[in-house]
Every structure is written in structure tokens, then in C-alpha cells.
């Protein structure tokens, strides 16, 4: 009961702020709504028992990436509103329609398949071990440093490359 209330509340807020993100004129406000959205999603993670993910979400997304967005928004000190010029060929309406249709389809599929075969194999998997409640961080760490070691290293290389790339791009003269 309580879970449902929390979930529906969170879901409504998440979707609402997401809509605000893409509909607000002011870019800084947009970024602010994005932060709120991320924080709400982090709460959702907590509901899902993924505390570590929630913390990382706040730390990286809210504390890092969006700050970066804000920096850029401030540096890009616009003298004229960015939405003035519109290319006539961009088919915005079609895109909107397609996206809505797709959403409907996806929802239909998900709901259909969920009702079709109820009782997912969660219980079986839970019985098989892998209790994710306790040492959530520890487990993620174990997986990251064993099974996913190579992706982990690749990700670190990716970040390094991105860092260098960003520096090269943003620096005025090297």
C-alpha cells in the first residue's frame, strides 16, 4: 500500500519534471528540473533496493553532469534566443506522433506480456541465492572487479578519452 503510494507519487513527479525539462524555455530552469528529475529517479532506485546506484546517480548525474550543463549554459551567454530559427523540414509533428504511438505500443506490449505470464521468476532466482539486500555495494564491487573487469577498464579508458577530448575541444589554444 505504502509502496504503491510512493511509487505512483514518484512516477508522477518524474514524468512531470521530465515534461518540464523538455518544455521549459529557459535553459537554466530546464537544467534545474533535470536535477530534480535525477534526484527523484535516485529515490526510485532506493525503492528498488539499489542504494549504491542511487548514490552514484546523485553523485555523478546530479553532482557532476548537470553542473557541467549549467557551466555550459552560463558560458554560452546567448544574445538571442536559440529557438528563433526553425528549419521548415524538420517534421516535428510527425516525430511527436510517432513517439506517442510508440509509447502506446510499448505500454501495450509490457502490460500484455506482464498479464500474460504472471509471477516472474524472481522467487526462483531469489531462492538460488544472490541476496541483493545486504552488501549491495560489496556485490557490485565484486562483479565489477571480477566478471566485468574488462568492461570496467574499458569504461575508465573511455572516460579518460572523453576527458582529453573535452579538454581539446574546449581549450581555446593548445
Amino acid at each position, binding site marked *: 500500500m505504502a509502496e504503491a503510494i510512493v511509487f505512483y507519487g514518484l512516477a508522477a513527479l518524474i514524468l512531470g519534471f521530465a515534461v518540464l525539462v523538455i518544455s521549459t524555455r529557459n535553459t537554466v530552469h530546464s537544467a534545474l528540473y533535470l536535477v530534480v528529475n535525477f534526484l527523484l529517479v535516485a529515490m526510485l532506485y532506493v525503492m528498488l533496493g539499489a542504494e549504491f546506484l542511487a548514490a552514484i546517480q546523485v553523485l555523478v548525474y546530479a553532482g557532476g553532469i548537470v553542473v557541467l550543463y549549467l557551466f555550459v549554459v552560463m558560458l554560452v551567454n546567448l544574445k538571442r534566443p536559440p529557438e528563433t530559427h526553425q*528549419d521548415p523540414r*524538420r517534421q516535428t509533428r*510527425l*516525430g511527436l506522433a*510517432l513517439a506517442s504511438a*510508440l509509447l502506446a505500443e510499448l505500454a*501495450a*506490449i509490457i502490460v500484455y506480456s506482464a498479464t500474460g505470464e504472471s509471477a516472474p521468476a524472481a522467487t526462483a532466482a531469489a531462492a538460488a541465492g544472490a541476496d541483493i539486500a545486504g552488501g549491495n555495494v560489496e556485490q557490485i564491487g565484486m562483479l565489477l572487479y571480477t566478471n566485468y573487469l574488462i568492461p570496467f577498464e574499458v569504461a575508465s579508458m573511455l572516460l579518460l578519452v572523453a576527458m582529453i577530448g573535452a579538454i581539446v575541444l574546449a581549450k581555446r589554444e593548445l
Partner: protein
Amino acid sequence: MDVIWLIPLLPGIGAAVNGLLGIRFFSKVQTAVVGCGSMGLAALLSVYAFVQLLGSESRVHDVVVATWIPPIALETVDGIGAFAADWAFRLDPLSGMMILVVSGIGLLIHIYSTSYMLSESDAGYARFFCYLNLFCFFMLTLVLGANLLVMFVGWEGVGLCSYLLIGFWYEKQSASDAGKKAFLVNRIGDWGFVLGIFLIFFTFGSLDFREVAAGAAAMPIEAAEFGVISLICLFLFVGAVGKSAQIPLYVWLPDAMEGPTPVSALIHAATMVTAGVYMVCRNAVLFTHAPMVMTIVAVIGGLTALMAASIGLTQTDIKRVLAYSTVSQLGYMFLATGVGAFGAGAFHLMTHAFFKALLFLGSGSVIHAMNEEQDMRRMGGLKTFMPVTFVTMLVGTLAIAGIPPLAGFFSKDEILFRTFLHNRALWILAVATAGMTAFYMFRLMAMTFYGDYRGPAWENAEGDDHGGHDENGGHGAWHGPHESPPPMTGPLMALAVGAIVAGFVGIPAALGGSNAIEHFLEPSFVAEAHVEGGEVAAGEAAEEVHEISHAAELGLMALSILVALGGIGLAYRLYIARPELAEAWRARWAGVHRVLLNKYYVDELYQSTVVRGTMSGGRGLWRFDGRVVDGAVNGAGWLTIVSSWCSQLFDRYAVDGAVNLIGWSASESSFSLRRIQTGLIQNYALVMLLGVFVFVSIYLLVQ
């Protein structure tokens, strides 16, 4: 002894320090201290390990440093095997001897280089020592490796270092070309080696030498048929041929003399080129199970020895003479292994390392003294200018010529004797080679040190001993030939002592010795499980030795000494006593001389076959393109013309119309299609979205 992994690692660390820090920050002294220091420590450790080995009962010691490749399931001949490799090092008599040779001679050459390379810049100096240390690291890895993969790491590593060091003066076109040549030729050998490794794993399910040997020992000797072991051995031998410069892949070694002389001494005479011999010895059990390959090895070894020696007769570049001599001596070693005398081959490997390193360093000293002059025709009479170099080189020359009691005598004679037992034809080849060796080596000595000085004049006629070095240790103006500084003569003297005494470990029974070295090395050439029946061939061969009387052996020795003395005498007569006679002979045998001087035209042969073959293959394809394809096109054009002549109307309205239609439709459609390329990301995203939509719709409908 558990720290034998430190032996290769120390030069590795030295290389890392010199490479990472030295090139930027070190002075020459610091570089030299790091380089020689790490080598010195490695040498000390080698001696320590060797002494421990002598004391230990089992005569073999394994150290596994780390797991390299965890077991991977792979198919082998008997089901699924585990492909695994450790960083494992093995110290046994053979590798023990090798680490002594490598680290000892390596150390001496490091010391020598500190002085020889002084004219380099600080960075170049550090780079040189970095490469040199790196080489020692890989070479020691090669000899200490307990399985084929570790050995292969060292094998490739020394190839790399060889490439780097041959091309050390990469500004020089010929040097970088020589480096590339060495690298490419070696690749052919490595191809064989790798195939051999694959086949070994497939056959025995392991790469560890001991397990392979045990596996091979359990298999029958392939005396008649050419079975899998023979194939493995053939592949391995291809690898050895590449690395050890045997026919037909020897061409890179003489060119490798473009590198600095210490490099020639260390890599292209004493250590790396013997890796092939070492590898064959290491896999002795395999080879003994493949007599046909053994025969091939022996024949190729013998032929290489003879051919290289004959080329050496006429060369005038001091280092090239030595290079061909090296090839020839390597041929000897393969001859030895080919006739089953692995111990003799390894013994010769060791003694050869001493005297050839000595000779190269001596020649380096001479070149140094002559202000980078390598042509012997422009030397002569240097005996008085550089007595230490002269004496030490004379020792080396006598050793290589096989004059008792110097080192070369014992090892070479052992090979000759064993060959005699095995195959008389090969023996004749070997004896001829011995004679030639003595001749060309004394020719070298004569042209360099005797006679009149034929080199260029120098500024200061006084030409005192160390006039060539100014305060900075670099070279000022050249003041004529001079004796080299102590860091260069020191190693020369040390190696000379080695060239004298190294043979004493293998005095044959006929001379009252015990042939200690071969008995010492024997455990390395047999499988561990030799308690079982089917005594291994190497052991049998050793038994065989005693069947021949000592008298015969002594006779053969005397013969070989005579041959050597004959060669020396001839050289003396032709180049010291009566130089004009040499001219006369050259004129008389002009044809032969030209062939020899041009090294049997092998380079040209390769140029015209392999290189030009590739080129002409390409050209042929080009011609095919030009003649056949273009011809077809032209023919079609001609047919069109004919047909158009036949029906002009059809041409004009139908064909032209069709062509125009195609062009017109292409241009029209391009204008309309270009619109799709709007440059608007959203449009592209829209298409993606559409695609997703379609897929999801299909999924929905199918559900």
C-alpha cells in the same frame, strides 16, 4: 636459486630506467652505471645460481613466477587439453651454461660499449644502453624459459632488440634497411617456430619442455616415416634457421653489421644468433626422434659452414668477414646437433661466444682506431699502434682456427670427430671449412695488423696512443690509429682469457680429459623418464664414442690441426710473405673470386626471385588488368562501334536514348534524394524512430 627470475629482470629494470629516465635526464656516466650495474648484478646472480646448480642433486630447478595464461580449453590430438602457460623459468645445465655466457659476455660488452659509444649524444647513449639491456633481458628470458611460450617471448624480444640495434643509427639509410631486412627475414623463421609451437601443443597438450620431452620420449622414433614429430622438428628448425642465419635465411646477418660493433659482438655473434642452436638443443629429445630432420639439420649446417667460410675468403670488410665466419661457425653447431652431438654443439656455442665476441670487439677496437674505417685494404700494420688489440685478436684467431690448446680446438674437434663417426661426407665438408676458417682469419689478421700501413694520413704525425680523445671523452680531430682506452681493452683481455681457457672444460677423453662439459650438459638433452626402456639416441651416441679407439681420435685431431696450420701457412704466404702472389691468384681464379666476392649472388638471387617475384606478380596482375580486362572493354567498344555502324538509327535513338535516360534519371533522382540529407539531426532521428516503430509494431502484431 629461487631468484633466478631476477637474472633476466635486472637488465629489464636497467632498460626501463635508461629508457624512461635516461634518455631525458641521465648523463653518460649515469647511463653507463645503470646499464653496467644491472648487467653486473645479473652476472653475479648467474654465477651464484650456477654454483648452486652445480651443488644441487637434481641438476634442474624450476621457478614459477606467475601464471600467465590460465588454462584455456583447446582441442588437442587426444581430446581437449588445457592451453596454459606460466611465467616459468628453468635452470638446468644447458640454461645454466647459457646464462653464464649471456650475462658474462653481456657484461663485458656493456663495459666495452661505455667507451665505444662515447661519441653518441647523451640521449643516444642512453637509448643504446636501454636497447642493450633490453636485449639481455629478452635473451636471458629466452634461455631461462621453461616452456615454449616464455622462450618465444624472449625469441621475439631479441629479434626486436636486434632490429632496434641494427638500425641504431637510423639516420643512415643502409642501417635502417639492414634492420628491416633482418626483421623480415626473421619473420619467416618465426612463422616456422610458431607453427611448431602450435603443433607441439596439438600433439603433446603442453608447452613445457619437460612434458614435451617426456611425451616425445614415449613415442617411437620416426626412423622411416615422416611423422608428426618430424614435422614439428622441421618447423622448429625453420625457426632456428631464421634466427641462426643458416641457408637459406642467412642473408640478414652480414647486413646486420651495420649496427654498432658491440651489438654485432653481443647479438650477432655471441648470443642471439645461437638461440637457434640453443632451441634445437633444448628440444633435443624431439629431434632425436626425427632422424630425417636430423639429417636435414646436419646437411644444412655443413653446407652453410662451407659456403659462408668460402665467402669469407674474399671479403674485405673486416666486420663482414667476421659475420660470415659467424654464419660458418653456426653451421658447425647445426652440424653437431644434426649428427646428434648436442653436447658438442652447445660446447662449441659457448667457446664460439667467447672468441667471436673477442674478435668482434677487437675489430671494433680497430675500427675505432681507424676512425670508423672498416675496409681491411685501408688498414695494415696496426700491430705497432695497438698491441693489446693485436694480441687479444691473435688469441681469438688462433682459437677459431682450432689451434690447441685454445678453446676452439676442443669444441671444433669434438664436432669433427662426431661428424666423422656419423657421416664421412659431412666430415670432409667440415674439415674443408676448418681449413678455410684458418685461412680467412689469418688473412684478416694479416691485412689488418701486418704489412705496411695503408690507411689515410692523419694530422699529427706523432700519433700518440690516446691522442684521439679530448677532454670530453668525445673525438676531436683524428690523430691516427691508436690503442683503445681501458674500458675497451679490458673486456678484450678478459675475453681473450676466456678464449684460452673455455675449452678446458671439454678436453676429450682421448687427450686424457673427461669431456666434462658434455657429461654436465647431458641431462638437458634427455627426457626425464629415461629410466624406461628405449634409451635415448643422444645417450646411445655418447656410448658410441668409446667404440672408436682413442688412436683414431688423436689422428683426426692431428689432421684437423694440420689443416688449420695449412690454412694459416697459406694465409701467411699470400698476405705477409708474398703479397703479390695473392694478386696473382686472384687474377688466376678471377671467376671464382668474383662469385665469392659477391657472396654467390644469393642476395641478387633473392632480389630476382623473391623480391622481384612479388613485384612481377603485381606487375603481372597489372598487365592482366591492362591486357585482358581492358582488352575486353576495348573489344566491347569495338563491337559497339561495329554494331552502331550496322544500325545507326538504333544507335542514335535507342542506345543513346537509353544512356541519356540513365544519366538523366540519376541526376534527377539525386536532386530529389538530396533533400533527404537535410543535415537536421532530428530528421535522422525520425528515421530511427520510424524504424523502431516498425519493429515494435511487427512485434506487437506477431504477439
